[in-house]
Every structure is written in structure tokens, then in C-alpha cells.
């Protein structure tokens, strides 16, 4: 970038936990020019959000900036008094949080929230009204009184996120930090929010920082990328340099875990988990997980040095000043899926749904739905939020009882509710919930959670039988048996979801219903879970109903796909056919809106 004066300059920034030497961020040096969008990517816990907040001179409770400098338009933020900082924030620099539903005060009308920001930064009332109208137009919301007098919960997720954007853009800041602002949104809404951000940044020369674990989204929006790992920037450069010719083994690993909507391929997860602050290795932080490590990596902390171009930096001993191939050898491209996986089973379907119509109180959610799942096959159900996907899963599992039509399992009709189904059916259909942070009781150990269905379905097994079954189930999902004594809050998100899967597997079900089970997880963790499910499907002859909003993921796991829009099935077919030659306009729209990691390799 050859722009005049940068908006943000970070030099050797370090952020530490209070009263301990443990660093959450260290050695972070970055500059951001006006109009530039910097993407910060990395797994959970890598320090992305901390870095994003540090750019507006903010640290969360319990943390403190302990080294380096944060300059905003030439002003050192560390020298400012809290009052001066407050004046800058909201006015000249703004922050858009991850979850607008928790970030907007539920007791204040959204219009008042917006005016409050303007009033806090000294706009007069008439001035504010004019600006409100303007900023609403900018984020694509109508300037209607009935919208402004809504409370946050009365708006959709997309509208809430646009309001959060409007609040951030209200005072025309020159820097805006967006922290995973589209994580909770479906692809179409995500697309419009992303377009809005890109438009606003280019029209007003706003510098933006986009923090996300979704590599595909970042690749479409950002001009430059910083990859974070264990509190350090381990690779940076232009988007095409970093994603087109990744240098650091971590970046390569991250990219391989991203599913592609274009080809069905095995996703490759990285081994291990990132080190926690305070437990980072002496040498390169990535060394314990690195497939190409050499002896020196254990002891030597690599510097962030230029690689194949002056702007492309990587923090790896192997790549300093060398071409991209140095770390490439160990990374063959993701293998395409073999045909065996898609083998079509003959005979009667395990699950057959016909003329299913479901409603909540009186509002219809599903209409005239029909689909079939063969034994040992995986059917994906795809649709936006609110399309009725989850209701469908809940009808099948008996959690939702208000439906008409027919659901047949092993060729016998299923009654509606859990209470009216036979124990054998209840055992044979297991459900994995979307959010592993909510689906595990915080009061039960992992072992107790996994043993629960076992105790319910098998009466009073002996202590030894429970141990055997639980350890089997845990082995199947690649969790060590030692974790049986842990509580969910001592586990990572990926580990929790494995526990939830183990709980479903322990009673040897025939049909596994997976409801958006990777949407709360990092891409690399998602890759591991998807590979795990594929293996389990083959080893245990499981049939699966895989519900997702992520079309790219469908490619990597399912053989058949069912597209749902507003409670109706609009398209059904083998995955390749539907994704490559979508017939229904809705499917076509979904397919074109999927963010994909298609970057021209740097030349």
C-alpha cells in the first residue's frame, strides 16, 4: 500500500494477563491504510479478538497492554486518558461485536440506541436526525419509524447486525473493527452485510479490521491478511499472497481444512490444539503441531520475515527468504473423495418422510416435505436460518410433536412424541445438537454424560460394562478415556462436540441426526468432526441426516442433498448434480452466495 498516512500503526504490541507474565498477544506490528480492509484469521483462542480490540485502545477486563505502541492517526493511544479515549471511540473508531443480539441493549429501542451514539459524540438533535436517515440508507435499512421504534429482539439477526453496523458507522469513523460480524447469519444475509461493509469502506476511505475464523469470508473481503497463532502474527501479506501461496505450515493447514463448494474432497484437520497463554513452547509456538518441524524449531523463536515478496511475511524458520515450495512438500492437496463413499444402497430406505407438515402453535413451519434416507448413506438438508431445517430434525427425533403426515422408520410408522415411541426406536435414532456449549450439562462429567443413554436403555449394567462402553464410544470419537472425569467447561469446543457425538454413539444407533453440528466450531475443528463422521458412517454403517447451512460442507460429507426454502423442499438430488447444476432459482442463489476460497495464486 502506498497510501499517504496510515490510520493504525501497531509496533511490537504486547497484551498480558493482569498480574502475571503470561502474554495473550506479543510482537504484533501492523499498519492499516485508509480504505484498506485487513483480515485477521486464526483459530479460537489465537488472540484475534484481543488484537481487534487493542486497535481501538481497548482491552478486556483482566488484560492490559504491557508493551509496544498503538498509534491511531499519529496519536499514541496508550498515552491518552480514559476520557479522551472514550471521545475517540464511537466517533473516530468503532467496533462491531460478534453477536448483535447480546450487544444491543434489549431495553432500549434501536432508534434511541443509534441516537445515543450520536448524542454521546456531540451531535445536536436535528443534526442527529439527518445523520440517522443517512446512515440507515448506507447500511441498507429503511428509515421507517416503525423500524426505529422496535426493540432489538423484534428484529431479525441480519437487521440487528445492520443496526450494529449503523451504530458503528454513525459518526463516520476512520477505523472500524468488525469481530466476526456474520458468524450467526445465513449465507444470503452474510453476503449483503459483507457487501455493505466493503461499500462503506471504499466510499468513505474507512480502514477496517475484519476478525474472523471463516477463511473463505475473509478471502473475499480483505485486501490484506494477518494470520494469528498463539498470540503472534505468523503470516501476513496481501490476500492473494497469503491464501494463494501460503508460506507458514499453519496457514497451509488452516486452508486445507476449508471445505470447497466446487469439489468434494477430504478435509484435513490439523493435529493437536493451540497452546494456551502461559503454556507456550520456548521455540516456535506451532512446533508441537507442525508436520515439517526441524530440530531448531524447538528452541528458536522465529522472526516475522519477508519471504517471496517484500510484503509477504511469515514467522517460520523454513521459509525466510525462500520460495513457497519450502513447506509445500508435506502438504499434498486434499484428496478427492473415492467413489466407494457414494455407493448407493439398494432396498428400502431406513427413514422415509412423506407429506410432512409441521407447525408451531398455528404458524406452519414445514409443508408437504418428503425425503428418504437409505441405510449407510448421508443426506444433507440445506437451507437458510428459519427455513425449517431444525424443525424437520426435531420431528424425526420426536422433540417436536405438532405435525401431520408420515415418518416411517424401518418401514413402520413413527408416532409423534418421544413419550409414545418404543425404546428401540428411541435408541436407534440419535440426535446431535447444534451447539456443544449448550447441549452438555455443565454439572456432569464427560463420562457421566456419555453413560446416561446407556443407563437409560440398558437398565443396570455393571460398572465394568459402563466403563467398557464409554471408553469404546470415546475411542470412536478420538477422545482419550482420561477425559471422562472432566467437566464440559474444561474442554474445547471441538472436544465437547466429540463428547456429544460419543453420547449419541454409545447406544449404537442406526440413524444419526446432526443439526448444524459444526457451525459453532473453528474450520480446522470442523474438518476433524466431518472426517470423524465420515469414518463412523463407514465403520458403523450409520445413516445420517446432516443439517447445515454450509453448502461447501455438504460436498465433503453427503451423498444426497435436500434444499429447503421457507418450509418446502425446492430441490433434491445427488450432491454433485445439485451443486454443479442447480435447477431451482433459490438453490442457484445459495450456490452463488457461498463464500469460497478462490484466490488467484500470487505471481
Amino acid at each position: 500500500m502506498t497510501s499517504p498516512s496510515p490510520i493504525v500503526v501497531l509496533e511490537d504490541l504486547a497484551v498480558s494477563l493482569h498480574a502475571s507474565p503470561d502474554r495473550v498477544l506479543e510482537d504484533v506490528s501492523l499498519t492499516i491504510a485508509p480504505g484498506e480492509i485487513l483480515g485477521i484469521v486464526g483459530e479460537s483462542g489465537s488472540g484475534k479478538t484481543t488484537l481487534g480490540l487493542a486497535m481501538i485502545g481497548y482491552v478486556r477486563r483482566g488484560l492490559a497492554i504491557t508493551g509496544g505502541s498503538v498509534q491511531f492517526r499519529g496519536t499514541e493511544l496508550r498515552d491518552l486518558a480514559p476520557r479522551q479515549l472514550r471521545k475517540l471511540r464511537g466517533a473516530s473508531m468503532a467496533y462491531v461485536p460478534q453477536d448483535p443480539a447480546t450487544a444491543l441493549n434489549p431495553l432500549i429501542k434501536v432508534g434511541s440506541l443509534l441516537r445515543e451514539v450520536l448524542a454521546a459524540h456531540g451531535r445536536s438533535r436535528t443534526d442527529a436526525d439527518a445523520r440517522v436517515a443517512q446512515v440507515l440508507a448506507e447500511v441498507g435499512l429503511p428509515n421507517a419509524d416503525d423500524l426505529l421504534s422496535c426493540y432489538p429482539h423484534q428484529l431479525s439477526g441480519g437487521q440487528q447486525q445492520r443496526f450494529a453496523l449503523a451504530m458503528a458507522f454513525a459518526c463516520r469513523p476512520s477505523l472500524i473493527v468488525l469481530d466476526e460480524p456474520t458468524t450467526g447469519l445465513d449465507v444470503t444475509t452474510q453476503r449483503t452485510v459483507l457487501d455493505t461493509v466493503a461499500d462503506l469502506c471504499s466510499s468513505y476511505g474507512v480502514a477496517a479490521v475484519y476478525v474472523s475464523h471463516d477463511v473463505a469470508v475473509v478471502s473475499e473481503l480483505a485486501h490484506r491478511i494477518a494470520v494469528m497463532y498463539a498470540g503472534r502474527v505468523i503470516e501476513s501479506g496481501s490476500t492473494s499472497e497469503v491464501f494463494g501461496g501460503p508460506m507458514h505450515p499453519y496457514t497451509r493447514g488452516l486452508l486445507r481444512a476449508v471445505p470447497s463448494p466446487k469439489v468434494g474432497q477430504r478435509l484435513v484437520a490439523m493435529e493437536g490444539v493451540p497452546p494456551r497463554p502461559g503454556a507456550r513452547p520456548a521455540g516456535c509456538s506451532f512446533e508441537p503441531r507442525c508436520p515439517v518441524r526441524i530440530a531448531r524449531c524447538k528452541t528458536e523463536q522465529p522472526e516475522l520475515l519477508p519471504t517471496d515478496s517484500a510484503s509477504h511475511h511469515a514467522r517460520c524458520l523454513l521459509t525466510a527468504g525462500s520460495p513457497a515450495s519450502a513447506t509445500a512438500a508435506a502438504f499434498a492437496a486434499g484428496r478427492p473423495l473415492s467413489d466407494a463413499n457414494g455407493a448407493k444402497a439398494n432396498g428400502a430406505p431406513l427413514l422415509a418422510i412423506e407429506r410432512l407438515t409441521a407447525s408451531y402453535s398455528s404458524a406452519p413451519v414445514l409443508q408437504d416435505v418428503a425425503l428418504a434416507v437409505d441405510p449407510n448413506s448421508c443426506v444433507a438438508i440445506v437451507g437458510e436460518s428459519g427455513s425449517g431445517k431444525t424443525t424437520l430434525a426435531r420431528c424425526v427425533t420426536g422433540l417436536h410433536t405438532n405435525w401431520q403426515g408420515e415418518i416411517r422408520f424401518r418401514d413402520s410408522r413413527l408416532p409423534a412424541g418421544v413419550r409414545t415411541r418404543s425404546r428401540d426406536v428411541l435408541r436407534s435414532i440419535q440426535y446431535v445438537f447444534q451447539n456443544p456449549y449448550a447441549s452438555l450439562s455443565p454439572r456432569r462429567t464427560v463420562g457421566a454424560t456419555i453413560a446416561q443413554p446407556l443407563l437409560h436403555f440398558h437398565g443396570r449394567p455393571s460398572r465394568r460394562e459402563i466403563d467398557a462402553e464409554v471408553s469404546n464410544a470415546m475411542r470412536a470419537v478420538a477422545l482419550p478415556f482420561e477425559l471422562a472425569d472432566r467437566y464440559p467447561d474444561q474442554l474445547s469446543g471441538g472436544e465437547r462436540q466429540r463428547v456429544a457425538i460419543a453420547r449419541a454413539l454409545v447406544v449404537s444407533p442406526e440413524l444419526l441426526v446432526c443439526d448444524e453440528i459444526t457451525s459453532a466450531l473453528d474450520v480446522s475443528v470442523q474438518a476433524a468432526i466431518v472426517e470423524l463422521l465420515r469414518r463412523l458412517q463407514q465403520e458403523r454403517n450409520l445413516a445420517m441426516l446432516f443439517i447445515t447451512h454450509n453448502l461447501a460442507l455438504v460436498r465433503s460429507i453427503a451423498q444426497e442433498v435436500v434444499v429447503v426454502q421457507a418450509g418446502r423442499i425446492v430441490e433434491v438430488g445427488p450432491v454433485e448434480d445439485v451443486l454443479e447444476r442447480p435447477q431451482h432459482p433459490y438453490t442457484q442463489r445459495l450456490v452463488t452466495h457461498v463464500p469460497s476460497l478462490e484466490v488467484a495464486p500470487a505471481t
Partner: protein
Amino acid sequence: MSSRGGKAYSVRRREWLHTVLGALKTPRGASGAVMTLAVVGIAAFGPLFAPHGGTELLGAPFQKPDSNLPLGGDELGRDVLSRVLDGGWELLLVAAAGTALGIVLGTAAGVAAAYLRGVADAVIMRVVDVLLAFPQLVFVLLLVSVIGPKTWLLVIAVGLSHAPQVARVLRSAALDVSERDYVKAVEILGVRPARVMRQEVVPSLITPLMVETGLRMTYSIIVLAGLSFVGFGLQPPSPNWGLMINENRIGLTQNYWPVLAPALLVALLTVGLNTLTDAIARVALGVDRAERVIASEALGLEPTAASDVA
């Protein structure tokens, strides 16, 4: 978990203990606990240190304090200090038993209403509404004045008077918990509702239960002291704090101790319990507001102590 012993499958974490310990570390919680424990200590161990019997006639009515009777005498010339030391344990025991009964009944009703929804919810909550229409003290007085002031009846009356209010609070808390995925995950196995409520819903309500117990305990003490004051509570001649206030108020100008000492102890106990309960509630709540705070502070909205830019 109903399983047999063993460490992997049976453990329920003592979450409430963490919350209480956390509350005790705050100045609010610590001061509340000190006040509460002081009064409970006096009530529990006081009888051991009472210099005289609580019903012995030792001096003139409303005698001023002297070396023999450190707090003077009451309306019949009995030792005020001994009666104060001896007059708490029965009051506190009855209050605790009544509170426990109220909490158990109220929780059962509230959780059942929230979890079962539908008809059960409507029936339970309408009954609760009817009971709530009576002021608590009037309700207890009604029962006690009809049947007579028996100790067991006091426990039941106080318990019943708490139950509808507890049911209200616990129902709203249980409504939220009942919809959580980890409860659904058990439900989906076909586990009986009573079991789901007992094993999953109630343990998740431990925080509102603690807060509610503390609050109800204060009300129990107030109701019992009030009942004693109007003569329907624990009966003379055995001493108790509520009764002492009533018996001795005519002699307030001659010796204020027989009124002041029990009144102070009751006040200290209720304030202490309330403060402790409040601290527990704050510790339990102070977890999930972080994101909103960050979001508004990051837009420069609230004066903040949290912008720790070094």
C-alpha cells in the same frame, strides 16, 4: 446421576459451593456472613452461657442493669441477658423448618408448572395466584388462630405461606432451563418427566434456589417475630425474641434492654441474611454481561473503569 458410586459417572459439581465462596470473598458477602453468623452463634450457643434460667424470677420488674443482671430485668423481673441468649434457637429452628418446607413445596410446584406447561401449568399457577391474594402474615394468622399456636402448625403455616411466592420465582427460572439443549438431550431418550425435572432441571436452578432460600429465611423470621408479637407465635413462658419485644414494650422507659436487645438481634440477622443473599445473587449474575459492556464501551458510551490502557 443414579449410578453406583465411582468417580467418572456420579459427580455433580458443587457449583453452589463455588458461588457461596465467591460471594464470601466480596466485602458485601463477608459482612453479611459475619452478621448472620454472629446472631446464629448467639442463638445456638447462647443457652450454654446464660447466667440464669430464662424463667427464674430474680429481681424487680424492669429493674435497671446491675452486676447480677447485666441487662436488667424484664416485666416479671427475669434476667434479660439470659432470656436473650436462650430466646433465639427455637425461633431460628422454626424459621428454618418453615423456610425449608416452603422452598420444597414451591420448587416442586414451580418446576412442574414450567416443565410440564399446558394444563398442569395453568392449574398450578392459578392455585398459586389465589394463595398469593392473601398477605403472607394474614394467611399465617388465619391458620394459627383457627387451630391454635402449635409449633408444628407454625412450621406448616410459614412454609405454606412461602410456597406460592417461591413457585412464581422458580417457575420463571425453570422455564428457561427447561428449554436448554442439555435438558432436551435427556428428554429425547424418553426419560420420564419427573426424572428429567429432578436430575436436570432442579440442579440447574441452584442459584435462584440459594437466593430464594436466603430471602425466604428473612421473611420467616419476620413473620414468626411478628406472630409472637401479636401473641400467636411461640408461647410463653419460654423466652423468644419476638415475644420479648411485645411483653416488655410497656417498660421501655424504665429499662429499654428487654426490647432493644432482641430487636437488634432480629434486625442484624435479617440485614445480614439479605446482604449475604444479595452478594450471592451478584456473584451468580456477574458472568454473562461482559459482551454488552465491551460493545457499549467500545462505542464510547459508558464511563468506564475497564479501559485499562496501561
